[in-house]
């Protein structure tokens, strides 16, 4: 093909790009492997992970996924990653997205949901950009970002929205309670901010006093962006009721496997008054010319294929297949099933904290009520402890040292409904052993 178009090498096609901008690291990509070789390589790599007992959450959660979820989602009628072109020809797909949107509105207590976004972190970035468009009382393009928000989300938001001239102001958390206090926000009263991000439960798993924080924001003409865990909404007050203007989050807990970090999906919902500022696709229910009900994409005039650079977003990927699985998951569980998942996860985490804090040198970090994650403080560095646990087939949690050095050696743990008493017992026993050994090691 290169010969036909008169080019020496494939690199010659990229000559227009200045050398300084090219990434030479791609030269290290090895030559192509056959299907059999790739299959073998990936099986070997997967085997290295083993089947560890997993107690890490931090944004992606291991839940039981009923077998029908993916058996149905992978049927030929559904098995596509995208909303199809000529979307209206695929009424089944559009109906599924419409049902998904209705379920997300029900869960979040909001009036309108989009058809999903790329993932939770980029959904927050999109929510910040949306808030700038929606909050006409503010001209500052500044967003209050509590430190108790998932630090990866904060980084992604800064990377995407930061390049569009949006600034982020970190708000510290209370060391004893592990949540954002109204006092910390009151330092900003009377100043011009566009939005306040509130993660509920926050990154530490703790429940923020969202009502009071949200009221403060509105009194200061600041929009409230809620980042929520959809599972938790089966138990907690929906953000629509405590005053969120934009709700976003990670949809992975709803039937999507951990899969080494993706693909997942982001969700976003808002109030009707801001619908035209919301990025992404929206499916609406309508009547055709003969009065029969049907589904169509709606409010497309602000999307990138029409509005180009002035679109509400230029990264509004809709995760069609993941949304299909989530919709099936929610349909199968129903409100009651989801509530049982949430309550069991909360109980399991409570049991885990009780068991682990019996180990000498381990204590709970915070006093605030929590959902299904908790921070533990250790009397020694976390990394070697996690490494020793990994040897015993246990993924013990996330070392918070990198993002929250002020806490000292701190470990974020999570237990969902997938963990049995014996699993929690096994973790506590292994931790006790590791802590005793490393203490003996330190003494020697």
């Amino acid at each position: 093909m290169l010969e036909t178009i008169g080019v020496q090498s494939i690199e010659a096609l990229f000559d227009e790009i200045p050398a300084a901008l090219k990434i030479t690291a791609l030269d290290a990509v090895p030559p192509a492997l056959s299907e059999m070789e790739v299959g073998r390589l990936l099986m070997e790599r997967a085997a290295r992970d083993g089947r560890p007992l997993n107690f890490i959450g931090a944004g992606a959660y291991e839940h039981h996924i009923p077998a029908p979820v993916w058996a149905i989602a992978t049927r030929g009628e559904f098995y596509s990653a995208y909303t199809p072109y000529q979307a209206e020809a695929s009424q089944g797909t559009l109906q599924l997205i419409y049902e998904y949107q209705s379920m997300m509105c029900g869960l979040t207590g909001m009036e309108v949901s989009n058809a999903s976004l790329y993932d939770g972190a980029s959904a927050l970035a999109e929510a910040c950009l949306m808030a700038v468009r929606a909050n006409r009382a503010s001209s500052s393009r500044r967003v209050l970002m509590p430190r108790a928000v998932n630090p990866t989300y904060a980084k992604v938001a800064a990377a995407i929205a930061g390049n569009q001239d949006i600034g982020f102001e970190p708000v510290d958390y209370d060391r004893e309670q592990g949540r954002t206090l109204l006092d910390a926000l009151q330092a900003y009263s009377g100043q011009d901010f566009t939005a306040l991000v509130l993660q509920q439960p926050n990154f530490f798993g703790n429940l923020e006093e969202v009502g009071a924080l949200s009221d403060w924001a509105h009194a200061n003409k600041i929009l409230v962006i809620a980042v929520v865990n959809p599972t938790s909404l089966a138990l907690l007050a929906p953000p629509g009721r405590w005053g969120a203007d934009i709700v976003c989050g990670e949809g992975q807990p709803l039937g999507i496997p951990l899969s080494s970090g993706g693909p997942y999906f982001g969700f976003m919902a808002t109030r009707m008054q801001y619908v035209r500022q919301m990025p992404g696709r929206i499916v609406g229910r309508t009547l055709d010319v003969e009065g029969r009900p049907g589904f169509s994409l709606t409010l497309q005039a602000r999307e990138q294929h029409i509005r180009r650079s002035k679109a509400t977003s230029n990264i509004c990927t809709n995760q069609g297949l993941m949304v299909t699985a989530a919709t099936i998951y929610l349909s199968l569980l129903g409100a009651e099933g989801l509530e049982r998942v949430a309550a069991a996860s909360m109980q399991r985490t409570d049991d885990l904290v009780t068991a682990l804090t019996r180990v000498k040198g381990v204590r709970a970090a915070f006093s605030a009520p929590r959902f299904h994650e908790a921070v533990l403080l250790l009397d020694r560095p976390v990394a070697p402890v996690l490494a020793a646990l990994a040897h015993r087939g246990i993924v013990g949690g996330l070392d918070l040292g990198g993002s929250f050095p002020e806490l000292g050696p701190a470990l974020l743990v999570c237990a969902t409904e997938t963990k049995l008493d014996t699993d929690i017992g096994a973790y506590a026993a292994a931790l006790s052993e590791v802590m005793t050994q490393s203490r003996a090691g330190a003494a020697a």
Partner: protein
Amino acid sequence: MSNIPKDLQYTQSHEWIRRLGDGQVEIGITDHAQGSLGDLVFVEVPDVGRRVKAGESCAVVESVKAASDVYSPVNGKVTASNTELASRPELLNQDPYGAGWLMRVELDAAAAAAPFLSAGDYANTLAEAAG
């Protein structure tokens, strides 16, 4: 042929300007513009008190086909905006030079007279564009 009232001034980007005296102007989009957009479903007008600069996007008109920016032809402060359009965007299709007005702006004192088009010049522009 679209309606182009003689007593108004125009821009290349299809806005019209009506001098109200007392340093204020009323601004909207032309009959040609509304015709090209088709049935409008949503109109977003600027908040009263906002300062606008000539050439700056100050309103959005949205039809089922497209959402387009409206640019302020002048420098000044918005003294009124047509909030009626929020619930009745069709007014802009029906009466672009009357009930479909978008905003009123108090001109900055120091503002030099911008080179707007007369009705005749605007008609020529449209004729040329139509080729």
